[in-house]
């Protein structure tokens, strides 16, 4: 009986340790989780909700997390899974098929004042263009081009081969290039950034 109580107590202590460790990791990485979620959903409320759902999921699965591996990548992977489940459930949104880049989804830009704060102008058009990408393409572009992950890390988050990352990234970029043509051309002419 005493031995049992002791075992329970030490189990309790282990749980507290795990909880403290989990909190520390969440605090270190919640911003990057939020950025990913925000670019995936295009919406602050939905992004916060998604991050929270992924944190709950990660907490339940925390015993399977291998210390020494990257918690942020692991958490992003859980987050992406939750996101995929959501988009499957919703199915409301329609995406531009990437075979048809001529579509009317062109993001038009006005260059009346190219000196004006570039960054503030960018967020809306870029997010709208990201929103129009099919989710699996959007995820790759966000991870590699906005978050700066390597192909290998992106492949781990998205659970696909690095070759798939490269091909999706390329097709996603070609679509964005057309939709953000005004900005791309201005950058190439050296008028921006």
């Amino acid at each position, binding site marked *: 009986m005493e031995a049992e109580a002791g075992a329970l107590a030490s189990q309790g202590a282990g749980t507290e340790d795990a909880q403290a460790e*989990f*909190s520390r990791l*969440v*605090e270190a990485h*919640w*911003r990057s989780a*939020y*950025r990913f979620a*925000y*670019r995936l959903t295009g919406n*602050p409320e939905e*992004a*916060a909700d998604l*991050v*929270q759902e992924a*944190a*709950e999921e990660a*907490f*339940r699965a925390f015993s399977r997390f291998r210390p020494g591996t990257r918690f942020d990548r692991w958490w992003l992977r859980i987050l992406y899974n939750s996101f995929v489940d959501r988009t499957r*459930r919703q199915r409301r949104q329609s995406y531009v098929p990437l075979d048809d880049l001529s579509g009317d989804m062109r993001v038009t830009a006005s260059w009346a004042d190219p000196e004006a704060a*570039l*960054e*503030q102008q*960018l*967020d809306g058009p*870029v997010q709208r263009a990201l929103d129009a990408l099919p989710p699996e393409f959007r995820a790759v*572009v966000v991870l*590699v*081009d*906005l978050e*700066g992950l*390597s*192909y290998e890390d992106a492949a781990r988050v998205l659970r696909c081969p690095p070759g798939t990352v*490269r*091909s999706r*990234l*390329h*097709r996603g*970029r*070609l679509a*964005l*290039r057309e939709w*953000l043509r005004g*900005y*791309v*051309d201005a*950058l*190439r002419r050296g008028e*921006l*950034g």
Partner: protein
Amino acid sequence: MRHPQDLLSGYVDGALSAHEAAEVAAHLAECPSCRETVSDLRALRRLLAAVPPPDPDPELLARLLQVDPGTRRHRLNVPRWLAVAAATALLAVVSARVSHLPPASGPVVRELREHARLATHAPLNDLGLASFLSAILQEPVEDNP
């Protein structure tokens, strides 16, 4: 060499093997359209890297640090109309079966009809289940120790 397609993105990202990179470079030397694509991809990368990161509401962190799987709200994301439709369909099927039972010609059939009616009025709850079990089991089910 054919147009290198997604190797162009790999080239721009510096993510190719030395051999692949050399092949792409050789192709670029003679293909203006791929050179154009590479310049666009470089500009696009700079553009995307310049997008300001969104600022999360600090209150989110507080919520995250209170994560407790015990208090997680239940998520059964079946739309209400679908649940209602499914229940209605199930009831319709069960009722149809009951009404299509043969006329009670013998005691067994009469008993089965009776249990089926009961189960229809109280579908899938203990009463309907007990009734069903008592009809198919040899031993009485209610008064077992």
